[in-house]
């Protein structure tokens, strides 16, 4: 590919190749503080390419590819090239990960103990993670958390934070000094802007943490807390994993151990401040 960039996010190395310079320049700038892949070898290769050679210039349209493909993935216009790159990186991880049990969850850490938050889109797992980071928690990631089946420890994956619609303004207010990517308007997911995680999250990304709380947040209703029984937590967490089935028995063992060792709680929260207070109260009582 004409343009390329390699980086490591937590334990995962990526190499992104592109027919165009712009998305690579944006990635290089936003990920400038991230290290290169371990020993120079990337776990996943992501390709952004033009479907036909002339489409590099004429209404450029970005196809995404790599070791794993979704044939129905729609191409994106070049102005959304950064989004295409991030989507492609997520896709390669989701379909290819075998070293870790991959959990579609956000995670924060304090004193070596991690809170894992998962839920449907709009439940607020990203928002809560970024708000807790403002309160001094270490941000471990807002898309994937990586559970090591051998150790039971959670590895951080602090990739760029993908802010959508109203969350963009909220994050800009909470993190006035944060570095931001370009505002990409009217993408298939609405308005999107990427935010670089804070320096501490990047500096500490090689430090795993012991999972201490499984949290299923839901935004909108009055504050409420409910203990989640182990079988329900097991079902929810297997649904939140993109590679549980592919991992086979090590995945089963890691998941049942996680459920046995870590309390699971569902919360309703009416606003960000209440959610943060609920999480901190739950953690203080552990």
């Amino acid at each position, binding site marked *: 590919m004409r343009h390329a960039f390699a980086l490591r996010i937590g334990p995962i190395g990526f190499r992104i190749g592109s027919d165009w310079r712009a998305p690579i320049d944006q990635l290089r700038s936003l990920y400038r503080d991230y290290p290169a892949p371990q020993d120079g070898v990337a776990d996943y290769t992501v390709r952004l390419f033009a479907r036909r050679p002339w489409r590099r210039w004429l209404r450029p349209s970005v196809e995404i590819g790599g070791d794993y493909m979704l044939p129905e993935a729609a191409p994106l216009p070049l102005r959304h090239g950064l989004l295409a790159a991030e989507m492609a990186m997520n896709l390669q991880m989701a379909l290819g990960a075998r070293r870790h049990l991959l959990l579609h969850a956000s995670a924060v850490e304090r004193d070596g103990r991690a809170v894992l938050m998962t839920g449907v889109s709009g439940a607020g797992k990203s928002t809560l993670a970024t708000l807790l980071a403002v309160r001094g928690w270490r941000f471990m990631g807002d898309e994937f958390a990586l559970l090591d089946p051998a150790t039971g420890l959670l590895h951080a994956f602090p990739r760029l934070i993908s802010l959508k619609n109203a969350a963009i303004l909220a994050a800009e207010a909470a993190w006035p000094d944060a570095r931001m990517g370009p505002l990409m308007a009217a993408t298939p997911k609405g308005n999107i802007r990427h935010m670089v995680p804070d320096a501490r999250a990047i500096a500490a990304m090689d430090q795993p943490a012991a999972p201490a709380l499984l949290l299923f947040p839901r935004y909108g209703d009055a504050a409420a807390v409910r203990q989640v029984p*182990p079988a329900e937590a097991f079902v929810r967490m297997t649904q939140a994993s993109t590679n549980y089935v592919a991992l086979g*028995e090590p995945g089963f063992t890691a998941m049942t151990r996680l*459920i046995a060792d870590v309390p699971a709680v569902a919360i309703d929260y009416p606003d960000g401040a209440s959610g943060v207070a609920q999480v901190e109260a739950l953690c203080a009582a552990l």
Partner: protein
Amino acid sequence: MDTAAPGAIYRADPPGGLVVVPLDAFTAVYHRRSGMTHLLTEPAPQILAILGDAGLSLDALLDRLADDYDLADATASALAARLDELVAAGLVATS
């Protein structure tokens, strides 16, 4: 699925074929041969344990369950229904 013929022998994978982890009222079972995870409630884990040691007929299984557990309301038809579910799930085979 139709209930197996009278006198049919039911078999489950031997003890090493399943990983069984009790969670609460549910038990998580990993079926090594298929790579599938099942969430089971009583008496399914007990049935699998008994049938994993040796194949049994419906009546013999009912006797074993009655010996091992306090089955106040167990009937052959109720047990046959549970066995049909386990056959459908691929955890029990008949011959």
